[in-house]
């Protein structure tokens, strides 16, 4: 286990390092002067350029610059957004709450519903319900999340007026206490349903195929030969072994918590990191955009690392490989 742990942590750290190096070189090989890109203005004043030159040490060799960049990152300095005039890190932290609320709720819902549907499909393999589920899951897999969001707004908010179209709270009628929670929940419903529907297919398919695979294992066939009831075999042995890959997929989805919902957030004007990213794109706020990318890359590699280690702890076959 120790060896596996060491190996996995090294890979995780390398991933973060490569993300940083990629980020750094992208700024440098992009057309145009990196300082002008970082300054974000068409005609920055010469003092501004001078200050940025010193800040990023652009007169020094490239490797020294990279070193400086990494040191800055280690100090939590991801750069400053010039449109908000605030450090990138604090902007991301401000918007992360709503993002996590939306992403986490939908991840959990999709995991539970998708796994249940997958188990159902696996037990009815080859029958019409299984086929139907398979085609419906392909349908949602192929759907751009932002399009599903737009259609959902059109139907449930604009036409039927059941739910609010956008935002996280009703700004015209601010609520307190329980009313506030209710207000957020009604605003959460549509974006969350959109995200959940988009994510269900992967769990469905994964659960179904992994149950099918476990069912063909020799030990299951042996149990069957001993006359054990199908129900007991399924509950006690198949389920336990088949659920592991689904858990990993759940972990990886969680990793995208900060960003996975970006496109859906934008459609529903949800005040999360996705919206912040859209603003950064529209205003060509490169430091902010790069900062968001780095934060995502780092959180993804850290969370997948944790998931892998947990997985190895749960399933000895992995760590012994």
């Amino acid at each position, binding site marked *: 286990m120790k060896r596996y742990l060491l190996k996995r942590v090294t890979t995780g750290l390398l991933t973060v390092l490569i993300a940083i190096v990629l980020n750094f070189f*992208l700024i440098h090989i992009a057309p145009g002067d990196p300082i002008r890109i970082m300054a974000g203005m068409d005609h920055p004043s010469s003092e501004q350029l001078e200050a940025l030159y010193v800040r990023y040490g652009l007169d020094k060799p490239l490797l020294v610059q990279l070193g400086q960049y990494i040191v800055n990152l280690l100090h939590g300095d991801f750069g400053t957004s010039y449109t908000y005039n605030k450090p990138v890190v604090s902007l991301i932290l401000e918007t992360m709450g709503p993002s996590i609320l939306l992403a986490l709720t939908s991840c959990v819902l999709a995991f539970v519903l998708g796994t249940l549907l997958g188990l159902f499909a696996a037990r009815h393999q080859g029958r019409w319900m299984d086929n139907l589920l398979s085609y419906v899951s392909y349908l949602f897999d192929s759907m751009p999340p932002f399009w599903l969001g737009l259609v959902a707004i*059109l139907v449930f908010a604009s036409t039927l007026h059941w739910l609010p179209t956008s935002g996280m709270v009703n700004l015209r009628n601010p609520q307190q206490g329980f009313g506030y929670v209710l207000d957020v929940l009604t605003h959460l419903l549509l974006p969350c349903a959109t995200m959940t529907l988009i994510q269900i297919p992967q769990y469905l398919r994964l659960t179904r195929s992994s149950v099918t695979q476990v069912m063909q294992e020799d030990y299951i066939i042996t149990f069957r030969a001993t006359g054990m009831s199908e129900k007991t075999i399924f509950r006690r042995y198949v389920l336990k072994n088949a659920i592991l890959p689904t858990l990993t997929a759940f972990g990886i989805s969680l990793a995208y918590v900060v960003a996975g919902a970006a496109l859906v957030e934008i459609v529903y004007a949800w005040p999360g990191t996705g919206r912040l990213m859209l603003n950064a794109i529209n205003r060509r706020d490169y430091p902010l955009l790069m900062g968001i*990318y780095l934060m995502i890359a780092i959180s993804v590699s850290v969370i997948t690392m944790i998931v892998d280690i947990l997985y190895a702890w749960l399933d000895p076959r992995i760590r012994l490989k």
Partner: protein
Amino acid sequence: MAKQFSFKRCWKQSAHLRIGLVLFALVLLCALLAPLLETHDPYRLDGPVKAAPGGEYWLGTDALGGDVYSMMIEGTRTSLKVGFIAALISGVLGMLIGGAAGFIGERTDRVISELINIFLMLPTFFLVLITVALFGSSMTNVMIIIGLTSWPGNARLMRVQAMSLKERVFVKSAEALGESKASILFRYIIPNGIYPVVANTAMGIASAILMEASLSFLGLGDPNIISWGQMVYAGRSYMTSAWWVATFPGIAIIITVMSFYLICDGLNTVLNPKAGKRGA
């Protein structure tokens, strides 16, 4: 794995593959026959503004007076072009990198497979997004960038193939006859190990199309070209007054992407019956 590939057998074996190929044939026809199918010039904006579907404008017009139906047909070309070129770049890169790693083995393999794992972990969409934002959003850039960032999946598949193929007798005998490493890689390893990569490439086309649509929806599409993502992007602001502008291109994306997913799934079932049993 090196079983003889027969189209007839594949066609018979998988319903997903059949449906996928029929859908794809339809989409391909739309792209090839676009000038014949279009009722109006998709780039001309001289129709009535936001006209409802029906009559002269089958699927209505957008806020600038463009014919939604003709634009949608034109968008087929864009999507297929992006999908195929991006997937081709990623397929070729993946095959070369993965094939070399698996075939050469030892230290080279360890370094490359570590790199593959790392790149698999980096969030591709956001990498594509910042690169396009920095380098400009021309169609060529978008295609190349998607291709350059999505090879690791293909590389992983090819590596496993190469590792098993290099132990086979025909490769061993080629080695004994003194063929060069490069020649073995290109003449025996890649041609025999290509099928899983081909199946995965169908998936790659689908995700490239979705990625282009998402980029366009973020305002990072090529403004000189008609694409479905851009139509959805343009139509999102008047969803209530002209729902058809964003809705129909979305359906086109779904049909196209789904055809590739079904083809990929069908191919996997046929090529690898044990793992891919889907019942359909």
